[in-house]
């Protein structure tokens, strides 16, 4: 029957919707279901993300890298439509690279954030992208900027995004304090992402972390069995 479906393309739509031979997920958009988080500390930022990309109920990629470099010391965390966020990140990386060469200086994190905002706001009707821009520059040190769906821009000391973020607002509010060290931020981010991955069906896999400071970028991965565990019945 599968062969018959492909030999009669005109009836493809009818056939696929009437029987189970063509799974649902082939017609769903690819989305980074996601939990992402970014925290400022004195001297840099820590960013983290889960690693699940879904098309409907199918996990298209269980080891996705949602932490995308935009410049040497500027990263973005992507949530929403995988295609949209990849395209925007490519555009901004190009624009920022060009701008940095013109300036003959490393670019500001605020500049990168504004470039994201410009694209996300102009095409707000067509796009579905929630992005956290985080990095280090010489002027203001570590910074986190949130560019949610709709295209607004706000700087926050700590920010979460993606479908899994709703579950960890309470945890973030109660556990974040200004003045944490880099290692405390890494622990906080790993714990928050684990909690969200436990509750959100669209988030899961491994936890990817990165810390960005004047010295450079340090990346690490925490595998499933090494994630922090919490006692819940």
């Amino acid at each position, binding site marked *: 029957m599968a062969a018959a479906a492909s030999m009669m393309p005109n009836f493809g739509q009818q056939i696929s919707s009437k029987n189970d031979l063509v799974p649902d997920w082939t017609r769903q958009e690819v989305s980074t279901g996601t939990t992402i988080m970014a925290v400022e500390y004195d001297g840099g930022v820590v960013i983290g993300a889960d690693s699940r990309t879904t098309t409907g109920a199918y996990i298209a990629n269980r080891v996705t890298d949602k932490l995308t470099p935009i410049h040497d010391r500027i990263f973005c965390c992507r949530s929403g439509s995988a295609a949209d966020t990849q395209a925007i990140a490519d555009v901004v990386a190009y624009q920022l690279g060009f701008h940095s060469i013109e300036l003959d200086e490393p670019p500001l994190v605020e500049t990168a954030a504004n470039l994201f905002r410009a694209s996300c706001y102009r095409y707000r009707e067509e796009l579905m992208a929630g992005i956290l821009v985080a990095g280090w520059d010489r002027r203001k040190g570590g910074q986190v900027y949130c560019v949610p769906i709709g295209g607004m821009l706000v700087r926050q000391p700590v920010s979460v995004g993606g479908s899994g973020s709703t579950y960890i*607002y*309470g945890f*973030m*509010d*109660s556990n974040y304090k200004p003045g944490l060290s880099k290692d405390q931020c890494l622990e906080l981010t790993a714990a928050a992402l684990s909690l969200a991955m436990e*509750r959100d069906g669209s988030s899961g896999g491994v936890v990817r972390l990165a810390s960005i400071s004047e010295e450079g970028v340090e990346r690490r991965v925490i595998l499933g069995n090494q994630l922090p565990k919490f*006692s819940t019945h």
Partner: protein
Amino acid sequence: MLGETGPEWLSEEVKTGTTIIAIEYNGGVVLGSDSRVSAGASVVNRVMNKLSPLHDKIYCALSGSAADAQTIAEIVNYQLDVHSIEIGEDPQVRSAATLVRNISYKYKEELSAHLIVAGWDRREGGQVFATLNGLLTRQPFAVGGSGSSYVYGFVDAEYRKGMSKEECQQFVANTLSLAMSRDGSSGGVAYIVTIDEQSTEEKVILGNDLPTFFDQ
């Protein structure tokens, strides 16, 4: 005059947007709720007590449609009174939860309310039951309502087995405060009820006395 429909909130259903929580400890339970009732964007009651007594030592926490939740609580209150007279002693918490579940399941298509039932009885001590959508399950703690989504991470991280009564009360107050500050449909004051063998204690924490966090 023709075509004038009046303010939107007159035609919006009244919902207890809500955050509710119940947790058991060795010897009793603590229940907590916020106090906001909304009809669309309008807050129609900012001091509603969503912790409703079903019997002397059994309470339920209301969420979802205000009318549906209140009606279920009233009906079960009546059924429990009859049942406790029939058996000649205080009813079990499981019986109260089963009565709530029976209504929630039978009318699940028409109703949209979720009640958490918690209390103390002589046989099993403190117990918490969730009755979402017509299921019945006993849990060490349960959260519900629109505000609960924001605190799943917090309760998962902070809950430990064997907490004392005071630790449970603090846990409930912290959870409600976090949820109320993130959920637009939850707010007002926090009502906390503590039930154990000796007494049933009702307490209110006013807005400015609620625990605060780094950005407040």
